[in-house]
């Protein structure tokens, strides 16, 4: 009997608790709602939308609706029919009037170079053409008889397309839907991706090697001195990246300060100066310098929080300085090390101004290509796909890091 009463009480209690907690949760939720909306509006939606562009492209299908419809029934191998030409003519007339033919031309040209002018020049004359279009259109440009053009249009007419991600991976989407490798002389993205990862990794290692002792020094010196040194570490942080990069050009170029000194001290001959810049070495040096504070600051904050008593304890227990450092001190700096390494690596992976200025032909990174597609070729879909691939790579590395080191084992400051 008592047990039944207990059960009822429990349920009642649970109800009361839920009600009490609901009000609190609601209030808490309403409080964070603005921040949530802010995050949604400024991060999640734009980034999601941008990445969506990597697989979604309605340029062709929305401007050329009739052609799109008829192409969907075409088998991509038989000869184009009069209906297909007629649909093309109708769509082109409208597109010409709406001034949208350029978008179509650009879109098809991405898959089949050399077709941009085919579209724009044909569109100029198409309103004067008469049936049968199967003959009058190729009269303007005989390239319209080329089945490749029609295949390219069929590929372009797909709204959801793996084509851009394929291109980002040096693959090519064919009109029959199969994916093959890109021509050898146009395979560039994987090379750049590998190089980007390699440079970012090396920059991270160099930042670690240089940043660790500096952070240690900062953490162990008296506050007055260490604050001064901290300002010196931060000073370049407050200077424009362009200025810092240009300063490195002045330092490292063939007629620069470093080479001048080497010649002055007779280490190298005047006509055999070292190539320290406009190559991978220059990129590594400049990027390491620029990203060093990202490594030092988290390390410093973690080291600052390690009481000296740990090392003292280790020594009192019989450990030499070396053992005390490696067995006791170093493992405790791993959270800062992990945070610094991840910060440097992720910032490095997206770098493009510095590599563009000092990288020469060996120092170009994937972000330079993304930038090119954003600003010059206006191929935002490919830029989105490249950015998407880069993000997947970063997420994979982050996952790997979590497996090896553990994300909760990271301390940003």
């Amino acid at each position: 009997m008592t047990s039944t009463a207990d059960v009822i009480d429990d349920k009642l209690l649970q109800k009361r608790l839920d009600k009490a907690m609901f009000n609190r949760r609601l209030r808490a939720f309403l409080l964070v709602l603005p921040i949530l909306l802010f995050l949604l509006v400024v991060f999640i939606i734009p980034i999601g939308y941008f990445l969506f562009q990597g697989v979604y492209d309605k340029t062709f299908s929305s401007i050329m609706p009739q052609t799109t419809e008829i192409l969907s029934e075409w088998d991509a191998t038989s000869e184009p029919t009069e209906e297909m030409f007629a649909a093309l003519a109708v769509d082109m007339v409208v597109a010409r009037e709406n001034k949208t033919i350029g978008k179509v031309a650009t879109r098809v040209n991405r898959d089949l170079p050399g077709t941009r002018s085919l579209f724009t020049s044909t569109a100029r004359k198409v309103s004067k053409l008469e049936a049968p279009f199967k003959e009058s259109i190729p009269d303007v440009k005989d390239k319209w008889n080329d089945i490749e053009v029609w295949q390219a249009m069929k590929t372009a007419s797909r709204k959801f397309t793996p084509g851009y991600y394929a291109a980002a991976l040096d693959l090519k989407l064919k009109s029959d839907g199969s994916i093959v490798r890109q021509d050898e002389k146009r395979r560039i993205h994987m090379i750049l991706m590998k190089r980007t990862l390699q440079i970012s990794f090396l920059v991270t290692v160099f930042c670690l090697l240089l940043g660790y002792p500096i952070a240690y020094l900062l953490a162990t010196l008296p506050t007055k001195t260490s604050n001064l040194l901290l300002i010196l570490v931060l000073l370049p942080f407050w200077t424009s990246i362009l200025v810092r990069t240009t300063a490195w050009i002045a330092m490292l170029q063939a007629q620069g300060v470093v080479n001048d000194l080497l010649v002055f001290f007779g280490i190298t001959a005047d006509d055999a100066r070292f190539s320290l810049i406009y190559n991978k070495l220059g990129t590594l040096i400049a990027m390491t310098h620029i990203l060093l504070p990202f490594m030092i600051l988290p390390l410093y904050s973690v080291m600052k929080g390690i009481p000296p008593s740990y090392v003292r304890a280790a020594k009192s227990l019989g450990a030499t300085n070396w053992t005390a450092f490696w067995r006791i001190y170093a493992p405790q700096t791993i959270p800062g090390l992990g945070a610094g390494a991840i910060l440097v690596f992720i910032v490095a992976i997206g770098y493009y101004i510095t590599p563009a200025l000092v990288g020469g032909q060996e120092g170009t990174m994937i972000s330079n290509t993304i930038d090119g597609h954003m600003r010059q070729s206006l191929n935002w879909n490919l830029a989105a796909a490249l950015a998407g691939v880069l993000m997947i790579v970063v997420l994979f590395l982050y996952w790997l890091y979590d497996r090896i080191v553990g994300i909760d084992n990271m301390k940003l400051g």
Partner: protein
Amino acid sequence: MKKVTTLLAAGLAAAVGVANAAETITVVSWGGAYTKSQVEAYHKPWMAATGNTVVSEDYNGGLSEVKAQVEAGNVKWDLIDVELSDAIRGCDEGLLEEINIDDFPAGADGTPAADDFLPGTYTDCAVANIVWSTIFAYDSSKMENGPSTIADFFDTANFPGKRGLRKNPKANLEMALMADGVAADEVYSVLETEEGIERAFAKLDSIKGDVVWWEAGAQPPQLLADGEVAMTTAYNGRIFNAVASEDKPFEIVWDGQIWDLDLWVMPKGAPNKEAAMEFMKYSTGTEALAAQASWISYGPARKSSSPLVGSFHNKPELEMAGHMPTAPDNLKNALQNNFDFWADNQDQLNEQFNAWLAQ
């Protein structure tokens, strides 16, 4: 009745005048010495004449910002100085307002605008203001018998030293072919073929190990001045300015120059369309174009401006005429950049060029 109409017209004119006086237009250009030449030759006189205000903004070229503004329906810019390729592409994609060349004032000598502008310097959406050129230059103080032809640029045996080239296939492929003996008027038809592209890359390959790549227009004069390169391709105005303003001993080789245009375009839905159109007409007038030529060595797009071109603004002894890409001597072996070719092939050639670089 007539009196009433006149009064009405006067009132309207006054109203328009007042409206004009209150206008502020945003004009976007490339910055540096180039924008300065426009401010001196276009903005200041126009502001003095109309009482309107011109706000000058800088950008780094390309249509991405225009595209973003037009597609978002939030256009902030009124007039943009663009390259030919962007002018045509922007027009094709419906990002730009159309213009009619017949609305533009006739030349100072009375020639209608359509005939006064050099052939190919206006399109459905754009009117050129200047002709600029990609040339190559060297430091005459470091080379006694300097190069004189485009072939010399690729001849590292007789002219040793590093070469500066823009990290972009544009202009490089054309120059490579011209250096390999292809006549200027055949360059693009050769490049249309697979073999032609191979040939151009093969020529570039011959100096690949000696190349220092540049990206921003300000870099080449600096590379020359620092002695980083023996010769470099560059925009002619940048080299001229280094010579005229900083007394650098640079020498331009005009053989094999590739000339191109800068044009005014108006984004679709520009906020101050009327005033901006007035400014566009004013700044492409005979006098304004001639005046700009005393600030920078880019050739005026109007034929009627050429006789009015004087000397450099603060160096009366420096006659500008000979430093223009359009000077007859400089046009002997010259190539006009072919927009259609690049519009068709840019993506493919960019990839191929970058892959070639990475090898």
